[in-house]
């Protein structure tokens, strides 16, 4: 079984993102970039399936500018067999990303595609669902448990009402939630080994995907800031303040 993993590079989760003064975007110069946390979880799950003998090959793929090679090397150091770098100068919206991934699927014929439930930069939560649709295959989003057996996968999903379990035929797209696993740390010797693993580069234009009609971001603004309020000294004073505000 071959697994294709969506492995997006995003602004690190610990960075306090700042909007540029002219509203044209957010500050990314000198800001730490990392793998999308959900994609690390997707890769970890793929590696565990390989460790368990269910999968034979794990391929990480990213659509990103030319300077994203070290990011893919991280994925290889974590344990992926191969990497595919679709080189795109500009950020691609989810529908275009899904179309590009569909081209990779046609080439790679994976049995399972693992993606994050959302990229923490645009917070879109669209790409996996769109890919499943274009591919005409099942989707199981927000997975917190994945069991692969024969030509099927049983997926437990974190939904608003609780935990939902679906059974899907493979191939399928599964998107990961935070509680699926805890990604492993990369070890130094693996960073050395990753240098000689195959990393294929493809120009986005060479995938010849159809032009997409997608919403465009035209203006960025910082959110309204909440103000620091009052401090009270004990429970009685807290209740008094809340009563005064008409909340109790």
């Amino acid at each position, binding site marked *: 079984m071959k697994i294709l993993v969506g492995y997006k590079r995003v602004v690190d989760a610990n960075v306090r993102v700042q909007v540029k003064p002219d509203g044209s975007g957010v500050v990314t110069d000198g800001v730490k970039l990392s793998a999308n946390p959900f994609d690390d979880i997707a890769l970890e799950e793929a590696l565990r399936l390989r460790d368990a003998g269910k999968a034979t090959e794990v391929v990480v793929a990213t659509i990103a500018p030319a300077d994203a090679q070290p990011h893919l090397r991280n994925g290889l150091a974590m344990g992926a067999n191969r990497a595919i770098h679709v080189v795109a100068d500009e950020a691609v919206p989810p529908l275009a990303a899904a179309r590009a991934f569909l081209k990779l699927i046609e080439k790679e014929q994976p049995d399972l595609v693992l993606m994050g439930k959302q990229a923490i930069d645009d917070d879109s939560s669209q790409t996996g*669902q769109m890919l499943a649709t274009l591919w005409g295959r099942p*989707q199981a989003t927000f997975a917190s448990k994945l069991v692969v057996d024969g030509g099927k996968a049983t997926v437990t999903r974190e939904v608003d*009402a*609780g935990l939902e379990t679906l059974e*899907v035929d493979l191939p399928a797209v599964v998107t990961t939630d935070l509680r699926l696993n805890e990604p492993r740390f990369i070890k130094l010797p693996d960073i050395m080994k990753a240098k000689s693993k195959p990393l294929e580069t493809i120009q986005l234009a060479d995938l010849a995907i159809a032009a997409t009609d997608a919403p465009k971001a035209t203006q960025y603004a910082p959110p309204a800031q909440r103000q620091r*309020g009052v401090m009270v000294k004990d429970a009685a004073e807290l*209740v008094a303040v809340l009563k005064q505000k008409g909340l109790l």
Partner: protein
Amino acid sequence: MSKVLVVAEHLNGKLNAATAKTVSAAQALKPDAIDVLVLSDAPDAIAAEAAQITGVARVLTVANAANAHAIAQVLAPQIAEIAKNGYSHVFGPSTTFGKDVMPAVAALLDVGQVSDLMAVEGTHTFKRPMYAGNAIVTVEAPTNHVVVATVRTASWPEAAKGGSAAIEATGVSAALPTHTRFVELAAGKSDRPDLQSAKRVVSGGRGVGSAENFKIIYDLADKLGAAVGASRAAVDAGYVPNELQVGQTGKIIAPELYVAVGISGAIQHLTGIKDAGTIVAINKDGDAPIFEIADVGLVGDLFSILADLERVL
């Protein structure tokens, strides 16, 4: 000429409050008509509820055994087919239901989706949060195309009841896949208010320390008639089930009163409560970031403070 199709969310034969919030967002477009679509195995009771939402012109129902559970790849072709009957906008709630199905609808309609719509500026101009709410972004949807969007429910009130829309059964010809099968839903049974629509919420974090200790959070919530929420750390540690998680990757909520107990206030948590009316923070660390945004702060040991509250409330 805007005509909006709102995809209804329901569970166990009942309409979810997210639907009336999505209708509110549709009303902000000042459209010519808003229709609600109910896909179910037994849509009648749900449709009757939806028909009472003011501003709704028609409720369309598709009754099909395949719609007994909300399987995105089964629902999406039906929604997309109906959307092609002259709708300019297709809206669903930004709940796990809407996030699952709406991008599939968008892909079938060949257009990108607007996620988490929080404000309407024009028929094709919207605001939405990105970067865990650190940026509010104006997005322009292509004007030559149907707009597919999920609506950030915390940004919109429930549209009022009191309407009496026409209910029309309809059919679809789209072939539905059988590659995905529902197995089960393990739902937390609770007679407490629903976290996403409750007026008051009490949340506990890692500071609460254990699943047993969470009893004091439940007790305070019961006293206040509040729903219970939690930080990711509390959920990950197994103190409470996942559906209680509030934040960027949990539920985005806007109660009138939010009480955060033993929660530090990480950005990913705060993004889930930034529209709350009054935020109360109880934490033993006076430097915890939660105090920077709390309307009322109380520094101290949560166990003794909650015991005191129990007495004075």
